């Protein structure tokens, strides 16, 4: 294994001859290394599964690859592990181009959905496997196994066989096994999706804690669960059809999704279509004309007046008000936008409920004026979802209610011609 140049900028730490098994100065592990995809494409025959994928996971960072099924998340992860050969492009770990390097020479920790523990080995032997493969001396193996099991709270289970463990325990062992070799990067492919909801929440917290204990560890975390991504990831990469659809910090992506797909995929935002009818003086806010409806929102893309545009608004940013007396008055003094809707569906979820509302005038679609642009959402048929704590009185289907939102919470997005 060649010496790997330090990429963290914390001074040159010469890599020991066998980076992976020598006791490293920090008890946690080796210096984190970046994962870098450079224009990686993967094709199977005529099918392009990953197309010109470029992404850098910085040392010590957790990046979640989030996307619908079949979007190429696993393929991207397997390209790092070495089980998928890119048709074109290169993959780096640290400064090292690993594109043509065998999986067993990449010093990677990998955790998969179904754990893949070795069934004929005890928990301790499973964890020791990677160290044995590196011919680590016995004392080191014993020490590392104990350390790694302690890290995931499984010390007491060292002698157990995998089949005698619960799913959550098996996944902990799988993580310990991956960490025992002190990998430069950790790849997790939907590690929690085989667990039930309660254990999954607990494991998300544990992985978070684990990363606080090993802050240098670079983690690429594949998931289609946005809760996991939002909780764990420093940055989220949203994938769609083998392409990177969006990449930003979890908060930024949630607050200001850059496009319709990210807005809808992450947090199921309401997206309505219209035309920019007015701008604030500095252009940071825009008003959209959606039929007879006017909706304001932040304009981070700086769309000009007259442009076709979308507006994205999260269901929980719409606050409910009791049906009120007089029309025409603005519902809130602080510039909140007021919209009216007719309840068409109520989805009660215990702690919250989601109302689906048909927008537009109370009397239904017939009185709405003809829309100026054919592409705009017709407010007569446009729907909007609103999530709020359940009302004391059950909602009546067909009742008209007024909703408010802070225009800062809405994002005006460029119109996408090709978008479905």
């Amino acid at each position, binding site marked *: 294994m060649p010496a790997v140049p330090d990429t963290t900028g914390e001074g040159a730490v010469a890599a020991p001859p066998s980076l992976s098994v020598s006791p490293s100065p920090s008890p946690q592990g080796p210096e984190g290394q970046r994962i870098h995809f450079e224009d990686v494409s993967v094709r199977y025959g005529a099918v392009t599964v990953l197309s010109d994928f470029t992404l850098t996971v910085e040392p010590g960072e957790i990046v979640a690859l989030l996307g619908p099924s079949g979007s190429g998340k696993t393929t991207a992860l397997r390209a790092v592990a070495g089980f998928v050969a890119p048709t074109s492009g290169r993959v780096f770990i640290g400064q090292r181009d690993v594109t043509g390097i*065998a*999986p*067993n020479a990449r010093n*990677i920790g990998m955790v998969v959905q179904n754990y*893949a523990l070795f069934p004929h*080995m005890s928990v301790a032997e499973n964890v020791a496997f990677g160290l044995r*493969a590196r011919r680590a001396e016995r004392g080191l193996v014993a020490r590392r196994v104990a350390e790694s099991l302690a890290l995931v709270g499984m010390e007491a289970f060292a002698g157990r066989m995998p089949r005698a463990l619960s799913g959550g325990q098996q996944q902990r062992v799988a993580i310990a096994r991956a960490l025992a070799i002190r990998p430069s990067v950790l790849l997790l492919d939907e590690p929690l999706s085989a667990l039930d909801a309660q254990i999954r929440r607990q494991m998300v917290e544990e992985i978070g804690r684990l990363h606080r204990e090993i802050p240098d560890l670079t983690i690429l975390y594949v998931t289609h669960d946005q809760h996991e991504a939002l909780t764990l990831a420093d940055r989220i990469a949203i994938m769609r059809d083998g392409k990177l659809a969006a990449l930003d910090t979890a908060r930024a992506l949630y607050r200001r999704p850059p496009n319709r797909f990210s807005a809808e995929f992450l947090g199921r935002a309401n997206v309505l279509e219209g035309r920019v009818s007015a701008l604030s003086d500095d252009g940071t806010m825009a008003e959209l004309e959606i039929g007879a409806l006017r909706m304001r929102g932040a304009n981070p893309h700086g769309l000009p007046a007259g442009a076709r545009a979308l507006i994205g608004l999260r269901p929980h940013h719409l606050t409910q008000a009791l049906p009120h007396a007089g029309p025409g008055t603005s519902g809130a003094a602080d510039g909140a936008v007021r919209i009216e809707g007719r309840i068409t569906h109520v989805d009660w979820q215990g702690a919250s409920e989601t109302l689906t509302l048909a927008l537009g005038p109370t009397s239904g679609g017939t009185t709405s004026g003809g829309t100026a642009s054919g592409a705009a959402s017709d407010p007569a048929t446009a729907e909007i979802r609103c999530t709020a704590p359940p009302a004391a009185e059950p909602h009546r289907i067909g009742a008209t209610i007024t909703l408010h939102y802070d225009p800062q919470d809405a994002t005006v997005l460029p119109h996408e011609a090709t978008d479905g």
Partner: protein
Amino acid sequence: MADATTRPLPHPHRTLRHTLRAALPGSAWVVLPLALSALVFLYPLALVLHEALTGGGAGLDTGPALRVLGAHIFRTALTNTLRIALASTLGCLVIGFALAVVLSYVPFPGRSLALRLIETFIALPTFLVTLAFTFLYGSAGIVNETLMQATGAALPPLDFLYSSWGVILAEVTVYTPFVLRPLMAAFSTLDRAQIEVAASLGARAPMIVRRILLPAALPALMAGGSLCLLLTVNEFGIVLFIGAKGVITLPLLVYSKAIQEFDYPTACVVASANLVLSVGLYALYRAMVGRMGGGHADLV
């Protein structure tokens, strides 16, 4: 049916069964077929055993049997049989395992064709392979002819075919598919992620084979191996067809005593010994399959 008020219509089969059951006591349905098969299979077997234990005379006389069992030729045949069976089984296991690993995990063009071809070996009569071997490696076979022409030797340089090595080679060729099949089945149920995780942990191919594939294949190896042992202990066609002069096995000894020398008492003793060996191995085989667990027993 759950409704008590609707009376079920008399079912034709049910009625027939009832009629038959009425005509015969229930136990007859078990006893009759058993008795029939006893007559067809067990009676001749009993005759053989009887012949072996009485030495052709009246009354129990183990003297002749013990004499046969003590004879040099029997000892030789027994050791030959065991030696050839064990060596062949070992060969089948080693080659079968290697082939199964390659066919399951190493992608190469024509892989499915190779699989199909090996499968058909199971269907081939055993002597056919032997015949093919004679054409290839026999004293007048292609290989020897070529070698003799090339070197100008007067005698065929390759004569392993007419020794136990020839028999072993033929048996390995014939019976390897019997090991290969359960092995392939075992590998097809092995989670590929295990192999990938092992590789990413730094394991090279030999370690993956030793620590992941071998343990996963162990039940199939045991079951396939004991089946192989059972079949090779009783192998007759291959040994006869090769016609190796010095290679006398138990089945061959039975054949030569009974058919060539009309020495039925001796043949029966040898056959009985062979039978005991087979039944013992069969018990072993069942135990192995049983240990694979109910879900896997059908793989063999």
